[in-house]
């Protein structure tokens, strides 16, 4: 159980470990894109963790990184083809960030740090937990940006005509600034939790 839960808060890959920042900033212009990206990451993480855990005694340690990358790239290609076939809107919104899941440090990091040393079930739970943590991170930032920048959430209008949404939050500067404050907020909560023991 601990394997599943740690990824969601304590070792949240995005908000605590600061891994995988590029897709975090790029795809969070709308909550629906963030969910699409999050689900893709969960699928790749769980599948790659399971495969690498199964192969952990077969892969020679000197060539492990290329092996991991090829495994990950295979699952990313599957996601790429599936999204292209069934969810063309999300596919075009996510653009090159789907193939770029390959070089996402969260996934290679989990393969190296966890799946290559632990049995299958634990690795699957670890992947699932980390994936859910990433999904929550994506969603949180996307919700902030979509509400402030477009006045909507999942394309549902939240306010009337006033106030005019601040478009800058959809644009790149808003991504950096919102994420900066989001991480600062996480740090503040964590500091308070520590102070209270």
């Amino acid at each position, binding site marked *: 159980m601990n394997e599943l839960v740690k990824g969601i808060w304590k070792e949240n890959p995005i908000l605590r470990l*600061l*891994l995988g*920042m*590029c*897709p975090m*900033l*790029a795809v969070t212009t709308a909550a629906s894109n963030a969910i699409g990206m999050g689900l893709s990451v969960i699928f790749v993480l769980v599948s790659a963790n399971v495969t690498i855990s199964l192969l952990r005694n077969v892969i020679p340690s000197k060539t492990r*990184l*290329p092996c991991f*990358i*090829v495994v990950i*790239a*295979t699952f*990313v*290609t599957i996601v*790429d*083809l599936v999204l292209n076939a069934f969810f063309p809107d999300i596919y075009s919104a996510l653009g*090159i960030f789907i*193939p*770029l899941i*390959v*070089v*996402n*440090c969260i996934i*290679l990091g989990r393969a190296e740090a966890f799946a290559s040393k632990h049995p299958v079930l634990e690795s699957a739970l670890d992947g699932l937990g980390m994936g859910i943590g990433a999904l929550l991170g994506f969603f949180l930032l996307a919700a902030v940006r979509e509400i402030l920048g477009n006045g909507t959430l999942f394309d549902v209008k939240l306010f009337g005509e006033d106030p005019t949404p601040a478009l*800058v939050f959809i*644009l*790149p*500067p*808003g*991504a*950096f*600034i919102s*994420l*900066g*404050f989001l*991480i*600062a*907020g996480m*740090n*503040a909560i964590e*500091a308070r939790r520590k102070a209270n023991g």
Partner: protein
Amino acid sequence: MAEMSIFSIFLVSILANNVVFARFLGICPYLGVSKELSTAFGMSAAVLAVMTLATAITYPVFEGLKALDIQYLDTISFIVVIASLVQVVEIVLKKTAPSLYQSLGIFLPLITTNCAVMGTALLSVREELSYFASLVFTVGSAIGFAMALIIFAGIRERLEVRHVPKVLQGAPIGLITAGILALAFMGFSGLGS
């Protein structure tokens, strides 16, 4: 983008579509490496070299995949090309220029997972640029990356001696600084259109 002149492709890829501030590529090295000006220069030089070689090789590879009608293998073949390229560059540098290897060595393995390298290689083929234009685009992107890294390293050296609230220290202030820089770079948008 295909109909743009070579010169405007070059300028746009440095300024208006800056890899870090507009395309969100290579954020990890941007936040992680750029603590000092000298390391920022080293990383930039390594990225420029690997990125240019990567596009130079992946472009014909993609043409080959297209000829065989298996473009969907682009992700997997590109990452294999980039990972082996980094290895080769490392070995060659070690043999021929040990002093350069000493200063760039630690950055080389990091470049494999730098999404700016793979990102520009993918963008070059997806935007259907010609071979020469895609090389110009890549060099421009690498210069844009270098510029972002060096500007940010300069700012960070000054932030070190300023009082920053505890919760904002580290990544948060870095991201907020990047946001303000991105705002400045937005002044270039519309360039080349």
